[in-house]
């Protein structure tokens, strides 16, 4: 039996997602472990030239349904460079008419001119990095703006005609209780009435200033039980405010306002990534770019893809990814897709684990899908480990 890649559509007609990683920001926030840093003079132009070269190298005659410019801080790049990038992508791919085009922005960058130019270039969704709803939290996070700045910026966004707005928030800061979490979310919805909310629990990643502060004992991260309580509160509060928690950290006012681009990641669709550290996935092949801006530019100057590594997923690895991504979303994953993609009959292979998990209230077994409950979504990592095929341990080929 051979396994397709999840669809009968020929691969050149399957829709692509595009992601552009802008590796610059004004200043590094203490919690940030993304590939991003303040640029040296000339870095930005150098980067855009290299990026345009990468876009040409990866050009494909395939329809594109979503495009996401993230980072870093894309709004910090300046409007002319942003427009140049969009132009490059439009000439290299078939952007569909209803293509979701998102740009991440910091409140301080949202000027009337920038917003108008963005609209004109076809950007139809903004993701605004508000992050905190209390000035003390913004200071703790090392953000440059205040609450007042964020409110004014969002007002300008609305005035410029953006009707699909996402707000990023960070919850679960040291000292936060579930009461504070509820207040923050209620306040954010009242102030911005966004179509979409991303509420990330603060994560302490090695290599960040936050991690160093925790190691030195200056900052104490919430314990496991507090984290769990804040997770539940976040989902319950957002639900009460009319936002469906369709993923671990993502909430939408209506199904239509889900981030289409991110949903493509979670449903194992194909995507191409551009810029340092960006990943590309053309099922079953995945590759990732170098995180070094210097190497990135140098490779492209030589006319080579700036890839640092690639892997070809085994059936077991693909099944694992479908399960681990699916369990992070309210929609779960399709048993049929699992069967088609990787020949895994989950109901047979993991029947007793599924039955246990269902009786523990972690998931529902629907006719053709497995859907996690909120409680199940909270322990998705462990659940995915239990449900992943045993053959996963046999490994695949990774070429670094």
């Amino acid at each position: 039996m051979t396994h397709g890649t999840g669809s009968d559509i020929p691969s050149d007609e399957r829709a692509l997602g595009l992601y552009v990683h802008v590796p610059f920001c004004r200043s590094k926030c203490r919690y940030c472990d993304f590939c991003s840093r303040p640029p040296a003079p000339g870095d930005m132009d150098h980067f855009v030239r290299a990026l345009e070269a990468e876009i040409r190298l990866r050009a494909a005659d395939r329809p594109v349904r979503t495009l996401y410019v993230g980072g870093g801080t894309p709004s910090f790049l300046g409007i002319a460079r942003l427009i140049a990038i969009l132009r490059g992508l439009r000439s290299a791919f078939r952007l569909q008419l209803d293509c979701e085009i998102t740009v991440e922005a910091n409140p301080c960058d949202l000027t009337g001119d920038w917003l108008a130019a963005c609209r004109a270039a076809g950007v139809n969704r903004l993701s605004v990095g508000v992050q905190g709803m209390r000035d003390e939290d913004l200071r703790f996070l090392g953000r440059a703006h205040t609450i007042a700045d964020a409110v004014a910026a969002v007002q300008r966004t609305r005035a410029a005609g953006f009707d699909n707005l996402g707000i990023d928030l960070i919850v679960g800061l040291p000292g936060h209780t579930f009461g504070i979490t509820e207040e923050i979310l209620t306040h954010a919805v009242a102030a911005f009435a966004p179509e979409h909310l991303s509420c990330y629990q603060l994560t302490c990643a090695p290599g960040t200033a936050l991690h160093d502060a925790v190691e030195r004992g200056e900052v104490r991260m919430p314990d496991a039980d507090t984290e769990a309580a804040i997770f539940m509160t976040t989902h319950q509060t957002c639900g009460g405010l009319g936002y469906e928690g369709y993923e671990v950290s993502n909430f939408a006012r209506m199904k239509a306002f889900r981030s289409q681009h991110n949903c493509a990641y979670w449903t194992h669709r194909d995507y191409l990534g551009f810029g340092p550290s960006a990943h590309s996935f053309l099922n079953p092949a995945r590759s990732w770019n170098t995180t070094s801006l210097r190497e990135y530019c140098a490779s492209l100057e030589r006319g080579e893809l700036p890839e640092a590594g690639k892997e070809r997923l085994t059936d077991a690895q693909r099944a694992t990814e479908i399960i681990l991504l699916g369990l992070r979303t309210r929609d779960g994953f399709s048993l049929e897709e699992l069967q088609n993609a990787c020949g895994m009959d989950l109901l047979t292979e993991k029947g007793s684990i599924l039955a246990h998990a269902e009786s523990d209230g972690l998931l529902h077994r629907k006719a053709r899908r497995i859907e996690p409950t909120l409680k199940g979504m909270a322990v998705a990592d462990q659940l995915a480990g239990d449900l992943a095929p045993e053959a996963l341990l046999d490994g695949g080929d990774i070429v670094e």
Partner: protein
Amino acid sequence: MASNASHIRNICIIAHVDHGKSTLADRLIQQCNLVSDREFRDQILDTMDIERERGITIKSNSVTLPYKGADGQDYLINLIDTPGHADFSYEVSRVLASCEGALLLVDAGQGVQAQTVANLFKAMEHNLEIIPVINKIDLATADIEGTREQIDEELGLPTEDALLCSAKTGKGVEQILEAVIKRIPAPAGDLEAPLKALVFDAIYTPFRGVVVGFRIMDGTIRPGDAIRFMSNNVVYTVMEVGWSQIKQVPRDSMSVGEVGYLIAGIRTLADVRIGDTMTHDQNPTAEGLPGFAPVKPMVFSSIYPMSASDYDDLAVAIERYALNDAALVYTKDSSIGLGLGFRCGFLGALHLDVVQQRIEEEHGISLVLTAPSVVYRILLSNGEVVEVDNPSYYPDPARIESVEEPFVRASIITPEQSIGAVMTLCMNARATNPRTHYIGRKRLQVEVDLPLAEVIYHFYENLKQITQGYGSLDYTLLDYRTSQIVKLDILVNGERLDALSQLTHESKARATAMYACERLEETIPRQNFKIALQGAIGGTIIARRTINALRKDVTAKCYGGDVSRKRKLLEKQKAGKKRMKMVGQVSVPQEAFVAVLKAPGN
């Protein structure tokens, strides 16, 4: 050089650890020009790395030194090195029995220590002529007069006999050699009597088999002789005898008073017992030498490889180690948590340490050891007495009439300012019958009876710590006493973790159980259900901790760049889970067992 008993002197050096025994031996060897400066290396008698590293001698070793005295005569001085720890006191006693005299070495900076006293008394029991030597007189901290006083007051030896030396610089070494030939008697014995030789050492070497260290009491031994080991009646033909002079120097014959090595094609150390008597098979002596005792392990522990795949290597390592250490006994063992391993018997806690370290270092295997146990004597209600050193074989408490545990008489020397802490340490170790007296002006000697089980459980480390390294300890086995011993089990959701069961005194059970439960709480990952961790004596729960159910572990972000990293984490997690032991429904990682079995800090 003729071997004439009147020109032989047999000596050993007795000293506390670190008082410079090996350095003095080095100087004596150099003074007698036994090795060229080019061939010389420090601690030349310590053959094992661990001996050099720790400054502790664990095997006996001898060297025959040719010395021309001030009287113009040629002498042979046999210097026999002794193990330096209470665990090896039997080996020490056999060396003492091979000598006529001893150099009692005292560090001028540290003064008389517990082992100095203990060893002096042992030497006196063997009627040895004692030459006190005050060492390290070159040190800035040297207190020569104070040390003299201690030798007088604490050891009762005439101070005018004490020699001064610096083994480091070589100062006073010549005087020591002169004192040895003048003050220590030549060996007595009957050249015509049947052979009677004392075995004080045996080392296995791959090419020559067992090399026996011996001292002849009566008679003569030659290559070709059929000799018999009297304790087990095994007979071998002598292939070679000779002097140990760093290298082996074969001799045509050796007789009364001489010390040397013997090779007889002996393939197993089990045939050669320290303290045994060798005699001629055809013309045996009537009676063996007194003082022989078969080795008896005092401390037991199970050894497991940290990684189950190392089991075969461990089996080879133990077998190889045991070739050279007849005191180690072992049998196969297995446990739910730790898999296959070995139950081992040791002479004491240091012996256990030595074995562990040598296996880990020489074979590159990480080990986990269960809590060390002594041998308990259990009187059953039917009148039967059983000895138990392994909690797995502890009888049903309903059948037990009473339990006895071994006690030792310990001698501790401590600086005055630590006496309070030392007394507390002893009391916590269930000491009885304490007697304290000043020795010198600022130090005290504490004599107490302690359960051996407490002595082997970090007692020495703790003593060192509370006395800033100045405290010293020596002990000898005393007797067995009735005690409130219980079997403590550690349960995870009601299931017993056999590797963590231990026999312990009732008064210690709760603290031990709590410690185990807390370590498990830290190391067993949260699972989908609540986990009860309990310490139990029979059906009674004496300690309890709970691991709450896992409520959230999902990471906040998972976008394009995170997917393969996430999957790799999950692969790792899955592989880790595969290595965990299922105890009922609970997955317990091996680190959890290791955390409990690791020594608790103070």
